[in-house]
């Protein structure tokens, strides 16, 4: 294999970090739905927290994605 091949494999491996972000974001929205269905009247007040939590969890996946792009275009 040529050396650049390993670069592309590495870029692909780096983006695997997004799996964690996917699990995290799914967990947050799933838990929100569970809570919201138990007490729908309190759901509206927690929308802000929901998106902040999702954004924070997502940021770590985005870091992995950016690393992948960096390796890809290095």
């Amino acid at each position, binding site marked *: 294999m040529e050396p650049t091949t390993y670069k592309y494999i590495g870029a692909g491996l780096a983006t695997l970090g997004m799996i964690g972000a996917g699990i995290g974001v799914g967990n947050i929205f799933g838990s929100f739905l569970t809570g919201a269905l138990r007490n729908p009247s309190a759901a509206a007040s927690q929308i*802000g927290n929901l*998106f*902040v939590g999702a*954004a*924070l969890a*997502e*940021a770590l996946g*985005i*870091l992995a*994605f*950016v690393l992948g*792009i960096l390796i890809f*275009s290095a």
Partner: protein
Amino acid sequence: MADPLHQFKIEKLVDLPDVTLPGIGTVDLAFTNSHLAMTIAFVAIIAFMSLVTANAKVVPGRLQGVGEQMFGLIDNLTSSIIGHEGRKFMPFVFTIFMFILAMNFLGLVNIPGVFHMFTATSQIAVTATFGVVTIALVLIVGFAKHGLGFFKLFVPGGVPWPLLPVIIPIEFASFLLRPLTLTLRLFGNMMGGHVALKVFAGFVGAAAIGGIGYLGILVGPLSFGMVTALTALEFLVAFLQAFVFAVLTTIYLNDVVNLGHGH
């Protein structure tokens, strides 16, 4: 077929003469497609907000209602998170929110073959500027309000003292990561979304010209539906990322405004 990253290429529309700055070196000045997208976003916001407030009535019409919704969203956000001092920071958060929102939405404007609007927020230089401006304001407000007491930000209240040597470096590192994550979240979301759109659009193109043979009959319509669904999702993401940026800006400001009794 152009590769999916081609759309993020900066092109010079009007080349301006190079300028040599002392200490920095030669700067290549040009009016680029990124610059054009930001200018259009700026003009669109000014036009929209003037139109909304031009003929203000006590009972808002439809257009004024849209403007008031936007304004009320951010006003509610700052005053509910920061408290009674939130009003002071509302103009800053509102400006950032509207500018990012306009750039995100304008990036989705695409008239095939005629004109493709550049997504300014898919450039890390643009989002990094927003991140740096936000954190600079946090630092300025923190030092102006509390002086050296600003460093209490890294010492959360109610922590047993043996844990402090562990907690303080973690808090410090997380503070240093804030501008980085603000920058990369917006950049990564906009860039990732547009790459995904382009990849599926590429599948439709490959199927249409028969590049993948009879499999194209199956792949083409599926990918076309996927592009449509992703475009709808991108509109949601465009709003959500602008909102998340505004919420996080407000939270970071709240940390320094209500230092010591907020968390």
